[in-house]
């Protein structure tokens, strides 16, 4: 009974601290997340680098590492993998629309990031938290990344690498693909 009460108080205190902290919510322990982008010669990979640098400079306990993958379909595959999965992925709305139902269950939508080669590009996130990371800490880390991506400094840095970067909701694309939105998604 005493333990239960203490746990409840601790959880309440954590919520208060998170709500009271500034624009970017600090994450207790350092968290390293991976974003799958695309070919190393492409614009999306360059944008991934900028996201990564922005997370290192403006993040509080969260870092995002760029992974040069084979592109959108590969990112969907990697984000829904059981082992060694990536946490974020850049995908086109078209590729997301073709994903399997099982894969879509493992994914949550975050935002639209702009257009590349005429295709709307979306940022997706893995639903499941990494090993040894609590759901709450993972959610806070994801929220912090979204906050960096929306911030003035973050937008300027990413735009310098990829002019097409225009963060927006993308909710209609996610809805069309059958992907649920993450709590931190841009509305």
């Amino acid at each position, binding site marked *: 009974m005493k333990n239960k009460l203490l746990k409840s108080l601790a959880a309440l205190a954590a919520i208060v601290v998170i709500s009271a902290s500034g624009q970017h919510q600090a994450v207790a322990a350092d968290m390293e997340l991976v974003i799958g982008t695309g070919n*190393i010669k492409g614009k999306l990979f360059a944008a991934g680098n900028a996201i*990564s*640098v922005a997370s*290192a400079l403006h993040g509080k306990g969260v870092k*995002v*590492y760029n*992974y*040069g993958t084979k592109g959108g379909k590969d990112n969907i595959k990697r984000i829904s993998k059981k082992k*060694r999965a990536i946490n974020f992925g850049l995908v086109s709305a078209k590729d997301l629309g073709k994903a399997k139902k099982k894969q879509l269950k493992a994914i949550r939508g975050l935002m639209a990031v702009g257009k590349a080669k005429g295709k709307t590009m979306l940022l997706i996130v893995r639903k499941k938290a990494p090993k040894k990371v609590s759901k709450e800490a993972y959610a806070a880390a994801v929220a912090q990344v979204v906050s960096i991506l929306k911030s003035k400094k973050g937008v300027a840095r990413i735009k310098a690498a990829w002019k097409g970067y225009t963060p927006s909701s993308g909710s209609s694309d996610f809805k069309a693909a059958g992907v649920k939105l993450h709590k931190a998604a841009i509305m």
Partner: protein
Amino acid sequence: MRKLIGIVATSIFAVAIGASSAVAAGKSPAEFYKDNVVTIILGAGPGGGYDLYARTVMKHLVKHIPGKPSYILQFMPGAGGQKAAGYVYNVAPKDGLKLAKLSNMLPAFQLLRGGTKYDVSKMNYIGRAASMQYVTMVWHTAGVKNLADAQKAKTPIIFGASGLSQSNYIVPTIMKSLLGLNVKVISGYPGTAAINKALEQGEVTGRAGAWSSWISRAGRLIDEKKIFAIAQSGLEKAGNIMDGYGKPTPLLLDMAKNADEKAILRLLASDAAVGRNFSVPPGVPKDRVKALCRAFDATMADPAFLANAKSRKLLVEPKPCEWLTKVAADIVATPKPLVKKAKALLGWK
């Protein structure tokens, strides 16, 4: 007129770039790295040994780099690390902000395969965290507990390998060619995890792999005596690698019958010495390379790093940048006739 404006604009841009480079070049390493972000490029994807070593080393290395920069990782897998090596050597900015943790196979690959987009002897090495002593392991069902047992084996030991240019192919192939072992090598496995699975399922009965990888990823199999070490490949013998009878495993290099064989084995074992190496591309200002080298040395002696590495079951066998630079230069200077013989032993053209 438009052409003239274009030329003037290009010139102004070039002068501006030159000026900013000069300003950057004039800064001390501490001034340059302060508030900056160092990127370490990995020639592999997340989750493996490259990732684990890079994360562990970088976490502590940045504390020893003057100016204490921040850091990020960048994964660039493909073509056994060739893609990342080509990018680091040719495309990455040469300002000291792009570090690399590249494949230890690059020197041997450059020499034996040729046509590479990099020259390992021109890279600026900053240090090695651990060797990649390759250990040949045999599954318990094969009835082989040491090299002598393997030499008497009537049933071939079937080794799983990922690719023809990988050590897990090269080491057993050389053991077959030079020691006459009854060995078959099946290549095409996507990675070491897949070969380990094949071992447990009885599909193959052996695998050659880095000792550091064996103990961090498959230590359980060694502890449970499901797999036995029979030989090691490297430039120096590691005394802590025991065979199935509890005796130290022999070093392949010590088994050479003549000077030529020794030179070939030395060449093929050089990747073990290059090991878990860290580097920056050629052209980085010398004072920054020096600062990175010393920071690396300090990291390797840092108790916090050593404790972190121990908790992650990572081997730490550091070597300074000067030592690594010499090893890479020695490999590239191998006489051509010996390279030809080594290729013939591996069945390469």
